[in-house]
């Protein structure tokens, strides 16, 4: 059955990243240079081809863009100005929006107004919560310090409420993510049609998901190992922080000033360091634009960096202010922290760049499933 | 210098012999009419089977080089012809192949289209007038109570004289024109400077067209070849331009274009001009050139109208041609 080419898909795709992929004249250097491209899952060239031809269905069912960790080797060796690495990046944005059934992702990626508007909306909501709603329930700012001289955070942001809110948010985000991952599964494994994967394989290969999530072994195959390391620090820091905040918030958000060697503080410091290190590399890289992978930045890239950095910085500030007993500073930092953290989690994790933390390991898992697939 | 004025010189010894011949050549000598007397005055015939009685043994007994001039007519068909050619070569100072048969094989040469076996079968078994149920064939040697009977061995091929012995000169023609014979004879008798050995004498250097009175143009393009009876000859235009194959352009002059004068195309008895090493090939080439068609099928059709090219172009010269005979 012939597939209709769609030259107008170009107009949609353009909104997700750099404009013109026609420069590619199909020499195949990018695919061959890519350490992650493997038999059956070749990219970037094949994917560029699908983009050039506007083959929507084929693009949607592609798992390959998620296998790319953007080391930039392809772009460096590309004889034309095709920039395959960035095209893969753009494609990931596109795919994210295609997995998302709410349509918000598309809105966020294709319209800065929407994205910034949403962020601001949530930020305002958070600020309002702290300034209006919580006080109306009797939670007050207090300059009173704990015995150790720390700020009484919980009196201002009661841990049980924050925790509930936390869980709610986690459930919303998780359900959105899971539903999108299911859609991803549907598009990649189910709808693509030609093959069937047994349940046994599904179960047997599941460990890959966790392994890949934790170690990112694929990423390490890229020639630029430093980037993998910095990204791993960032990722591990983020994960630790995420788990600690969502699952162990009562343990983490304490008014007690624990000794420096306490696990809570060690984990916190590690996560902060990991995040800062990773962020610094990314920000410097994007600002200098020397490395190909950082040369082209979409609004969503900068926004994400900005928000994560803000979150980390405000988090650090909360910590410093709190243990030094600077009450108001702590509260302001706390509100600011939440004002960036909440929209970041609500928007970035399910709808935007941050979603890759879920899609990538699943993509590896799906890839493996496809390898064991038997033709129908 | 007329022949009769030089009788004072010592008389030449003349031999005239016939191999496989019709006798016409010998008659051509007689056709000199009263000039024959001059010949006889200047030369003594010492051996001339058609005219005088002398045995082969007598000739063999003659001293070598004792005959001044031998006119050998007829082709070499059998062992007798060959033997006599060798004997005469030895005995003669000048050996002339006289007439088309001795020169190139002549009409008897057409037998080279057949093998000895075919000829014998036809002659002794199949011809309509033959009754030979035992299929008896001549054999060269046959024992009878009286002793051994011998007849000459019949060769498989007809050969021109030069294939069996060295020949000094050739006088072409079937038969040669008597006037030409007189000219040659006079030259020899008067001791004029003789042409180089191997030359054709008694004929012109140019070919027949030169003397032919018919009208010739460069329009030699033929769509179909005709045999003479198929057209109404206008008696003026070159035969070739009428589509009738005339060997005139490739045949030495000397005959006086007699055939064409008689409104019959030249058949080539005077043989090829000096520059040609095969008697029929040049004519074939010229005729091929005249074919007026480009498409292979059309060419084939035109060639179809040349019924028997080998017989036509090599009528008098098959044994003397490059191929010499048909392969068996």
């Amino acid at each position, binding site marked *: 059955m012939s597939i209709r080419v769609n030259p107008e898909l170009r107009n949609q795709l353009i909104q997700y990243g750099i404009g013109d992929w026609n420069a590619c004249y199909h020499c195949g250097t990018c695919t061959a240079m890519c350490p992650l491209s493997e038999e059956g899952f070749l990219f970037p060239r094949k994917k560029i081809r699908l983009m050039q031809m506007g083959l929507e269905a084929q693009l949607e069912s592609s798992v390959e863009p998620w296998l790319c960790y953007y080391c930039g080797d392809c772009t460096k060796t590309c004889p034309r100005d095709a920039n395959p690495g960035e095209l893969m990046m753009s494609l990931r944005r596109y795919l994210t929006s295609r997995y998302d059934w709410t349509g918000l992702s598309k809105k966020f990626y294709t319209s800065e107004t929407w994205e910034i508007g949403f962020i601001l909306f949530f930020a305002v909501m958070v600020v309002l919560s702290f300034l209006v709603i919580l006080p109306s329930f009797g939670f007050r700012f207090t300059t009173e310090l704990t015995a150790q001289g720390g700020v009484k955070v919980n009196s201002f942001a009661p841990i049980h409420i924050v925790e509930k809110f936390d869980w709610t948010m986690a459930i919303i985000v998780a359900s959105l993510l899971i539903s999108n991952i299911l859609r991803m599964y549907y598009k990649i494994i189910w709808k693509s049609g030609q093959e069937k994967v047994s349940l046994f394989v599904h179960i047997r290969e599941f460990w890959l998901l966790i392994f890949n999530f934790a170690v990112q072994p694929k990423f390490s195959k890229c020639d630029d190992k430093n980037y993998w390391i910095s990204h791993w620090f960032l990722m591990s820091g983020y994960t630790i922080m995420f788990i600690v905040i969502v699952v162990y918030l009562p343990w983490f958000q304490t008014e007690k000033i624990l000794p420096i060697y306490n696990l809570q503080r060690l984990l916190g410091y590690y996560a902060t360091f990991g995040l800062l290190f990773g962020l610094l590399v990314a920000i410097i890289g994007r600002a200098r634009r020397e490395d190909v992978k950082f040369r082209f930045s979409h609004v969503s890239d900068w926004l994400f960096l900005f928000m994560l950095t803000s979150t980390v910085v405000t988090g650090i500030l909360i910590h410093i202010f709190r243990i030094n007993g600077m009450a108001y500073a702590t509260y302001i930092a706390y509100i600011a922290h939440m004002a960036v953290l909440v929209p970041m989690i609500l928007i970035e994790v399910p709808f935007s760049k941050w979603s890759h933390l879920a899609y990538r390991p699943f993509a590896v898992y799906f890839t493996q499933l496809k390898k064991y697939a038997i033709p129908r | 210098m007329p022949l009769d004025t030089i009788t004072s010189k010592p008389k030449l010894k003349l031999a005239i012999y016939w191999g496989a011949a019709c006798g016409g050549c010998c008659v051509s000598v007689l056709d000199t009419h009263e000039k024959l007397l001059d010949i006889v005055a200047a030369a003594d015939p010492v051996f001339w089977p058609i005219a005088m009685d002398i045995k082969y043994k007598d000739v063999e007994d003659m001293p070598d080089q004792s005959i001044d001039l031998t006119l050998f007519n007829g082709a070499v068909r059998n*062992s007798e012809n*060959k033997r006599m050619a060798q004997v005469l070569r030895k005995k003669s100072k000048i050996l002339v192949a006289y007439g088309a048969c001795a020169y190139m094989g002549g009409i008897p040469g057409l037998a080279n289209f057949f093998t000895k076996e075919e000829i014998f079968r036809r002659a002794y078994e199949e011809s309509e007038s033959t009754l030979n149920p035992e299929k008896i064939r001549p054999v060269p040697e046959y024992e009878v109570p009286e002793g051994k009977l011998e007849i000459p061995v019949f060769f498989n091929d007809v050969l021109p004289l030069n294939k*069996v012995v060295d020949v000094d000169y050739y006088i072409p023609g079937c038969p040669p024109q008597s006037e030409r014979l007189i000219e040659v004879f006079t030259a020899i008798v008067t001791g004029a400077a003789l042409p180089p050995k191997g030359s054709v004498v008694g004929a012109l250097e140019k070919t027949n067209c030169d003397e032919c009175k018919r009208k010739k143009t460069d329009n030699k393009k033929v769509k179909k070849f005709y045999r003479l009876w198929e057209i109404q000859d206008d008696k003026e235009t070159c035969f070739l331009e009428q589509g009738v194959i005339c060997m005139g352009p490739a045949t030495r002059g000397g005959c006086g274009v007699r055939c064409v004068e008689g409104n019959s195309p030249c058949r080539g008895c005077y043989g090829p001009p000096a520059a040609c090493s095969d008697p029929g090939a040049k004519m074939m080439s010229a005729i091929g*050139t005249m*074919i007026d068609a*480009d498409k292979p099928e059309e060419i084939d059709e035109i060639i179809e109208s040349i019924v028997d090219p080998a017989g036509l172009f090599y009528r008098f010269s098959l044994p003397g041609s490059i*191929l*010499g005979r*048909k392969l068996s």
Partner: protein
Amino acid sequence: MNFRPTIVAFLCNWCAYTGADLAGTSRLKYAPNIRIIRIMCSGRIDPTFVLKAFQQGADGVLICGCHPGDCHYQEGNYKCLRRFKLLQKYIAQMGIEKERLQLEWISASEGKQFSELVNNMTKTMLTLGPSKIKSSLEVEYIK
């Protein structure tokens, strides 16, 4: 000794000879039985040459000229074709297999075709066996 046929080939200078040269420059291999004689145009070929080659012992004679319409001298190849046809009729009458005399058109760019032609003709000659023309004339009673 095995029969090794000899083929005498007459090649016109502009197409066929150049084609044969091309076979050489292209290193296309063919049977070594062929002996090439260069003439300016296939129209120069006189039946005498062909007969002479047979007489000298050639097992086959090959004439090659430009393709119809491509003759360097406009239509020498047509003239060659006409003579060739007549000559073939003659040699057939003389008991020579028609295959022993071939006329083919080879252009200056047909090195490959030329090499194939030589190989095919050599094969044909091997099937036909040695030509008897030379031996038929070397009869014992000739001086």
